[in-house]
């Protein structure tokens, strides 16, 4: 199997505080990996190291055998390592469509065009793609509404849609269903199942039902380390996980 992402001896400290210590593992192309761990275990920090939003204190990150440890986040995003944020991080005064077009226009290679007004007539394929995505994500009726006037759940949906819209190679979802209602969660889970099979997905999630439904491999972060890296079944049955994670989170 083709290794798409490799983390080699990565540590992260904030000031003197060590959050992650000597993490190493491989991700194969097309894998669906769930990441769990108690609050503050460093799950989001770990994503930040993969996307280049933060630099590791030690160790290296490889993408398709290329060392990308020092590459800035926007370059990694162009390579296809794309994330969504734990807290909605959108352009709230803009419309849903404008948020989406910003993502799509880079893909269409027109971002440096400054001598042509961006509208439906000039850029038909761009707008068509946006409309298709809005349709698929059930947001068509909100196309021209400002993001700030949408419900939290809808904003969350847009957060994830913007990640998917780039056709990434590796998609990192940071608690995608946090704060969503049950029906919204179901809807998102269904859309995640429809993602292309060769897309590599890493998903941090507190909703264990969601994560066991998607992941085929689980990573449990605990006390700066990878406690378990195994199949969902193993994680489900692990007594330590039940104690430290599930136990503190309430019943599954």
């Amino acid at each position, binding site marked *: 199997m083709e290794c798409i992402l490799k983390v080699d001896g990565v540590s992260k400290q904030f000031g003197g505080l060590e959050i992650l210590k000597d993490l190493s593992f491989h991700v194969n192309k097309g894998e669906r990996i769930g990441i769990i761990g108690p609050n503050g275990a460093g799950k989001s920090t770990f994503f930040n190291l993969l996307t280049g939003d933060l630099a590791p204190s030690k160790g290296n990150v490889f993408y398709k055998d290329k060392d990308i440890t020092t590459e800035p986040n*926007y370059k990694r995003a162009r390579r296809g390592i794309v994330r969504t944020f734990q807290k909605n991080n*959108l352009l709230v005064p803009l419309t849903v469509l404008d948020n989406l077009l910003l993502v799509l226009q*880079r893909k269409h290679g027109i971002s440096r065009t*400054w001598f042509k007004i961006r509208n439906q007539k000039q850029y038909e394929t761009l707008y068509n793609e946006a409309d298709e995505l809005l349709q698929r994500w059930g947001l068509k009726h909100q196309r021209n509404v400002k993001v700030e*006037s949408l*419900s*939290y759940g809808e904003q969350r949906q847009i957060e994830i849609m913007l990640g998917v819209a*780039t056709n990434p190679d590796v998609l990192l979802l940071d608690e995608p269903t946090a704060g969503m209602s049950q029906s919204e969660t179901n809807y998102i889970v269904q859309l995640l199942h429809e993602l292309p099979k060769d897309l590599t997905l890493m998903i941090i999630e507190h909703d264990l039902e969601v994560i066991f439904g998607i992941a085929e491999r689980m990573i449990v972060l605990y006390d700066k380390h990878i406690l378990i890296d195994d199949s969902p079944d193993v994680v489900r049955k692990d007594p330590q996980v039940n104690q430290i994670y599930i136990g503190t989170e309430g019943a599954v």
Partner: protein
Amino acid sequence: MNNTYVKFIAVLVLIAAAPFFLPLFHINLLSEILILAIFALSLNVMMGYAGMVSLGHAAFFGTGAYAAGIMAQNASANMIFTLAGAVVLSLVLAGIVGLFCMKVSGFYFLMLTLAFSQMVYSFVYQANQWTGGSNGLSGIPSPVLFGFSFSNSVWVYYLIGLIFLLIFAGLRVLVKSPFGQILIGIRENETRLKSMGYNTSMYKYAAFIISGVIGGMSGALYTYFNGFIAPSDVYWTMSGTVLIMVLVGGAGTMTGPVLGAALIVLLETVVAAYTDMWMLILGSVFIIFVIFFPSGIHGILQDTLNKWQKPKLNPDVKSVKREQI
């Protein structure tokens, strides 16, 4: 033909017709408004669209003005030559200053632009064999284009009007282009834009340079119009004034800076006849707008138009949505 073209042609006709029914004093006032409107539009690119608030934009105005003035006095008053000189010099200045300023943002960006512009000011003040020091440059020859000398203020007005229309149309396309939309995106959420794969520093740098170059052009036009430049045109109060024009008119809109420039120039002309407390009044206007009309004259006009055009929509729609969370 759509609405935009109609409006544009209406403005073009108005600008063209003004000398036929306005006295010379008013034409000169219009020239000044249009020059400062270009200056405000230039600041608006980086400030209103890309969200980089500068307190040093007079450096570019002054660079353009002095470049055109010094070249006209010492070499040739050919307008292509002097305008090109103003553009190249402000391009170089923006290119260098931008490299430093892109390293910081927010308050530090503001202070750094201020510091650089005060350096330009003190240079202008010191280099008196070129710039005339504290006396400024006077008796600058009128610009010449293809053997035609713009010695009459109505011709200068037409020249300024033409360049204003070209720059306005160009910038309007720019801010609505994919590139312009990225600037807006950076203003609203730079982190997200980076995650989308945009090298935001590069776009900000480009915006800074566009602002600087057009700012330099407005300075050159000012030299053509006035035949005189004073070091106060490079002073930080000039940067403050243009910042106020943009904010009072409506930052991040195309008509806002033009309206802001018009308001401030007209106000100054009227007020100067009665009192010399201009700065006090300018400050008060600014405070009133910041507190009561934060979206500027453009915002006021927009609201009024909206009220006229459609009956009031259900005002609760928005708040209901929010509460669904």
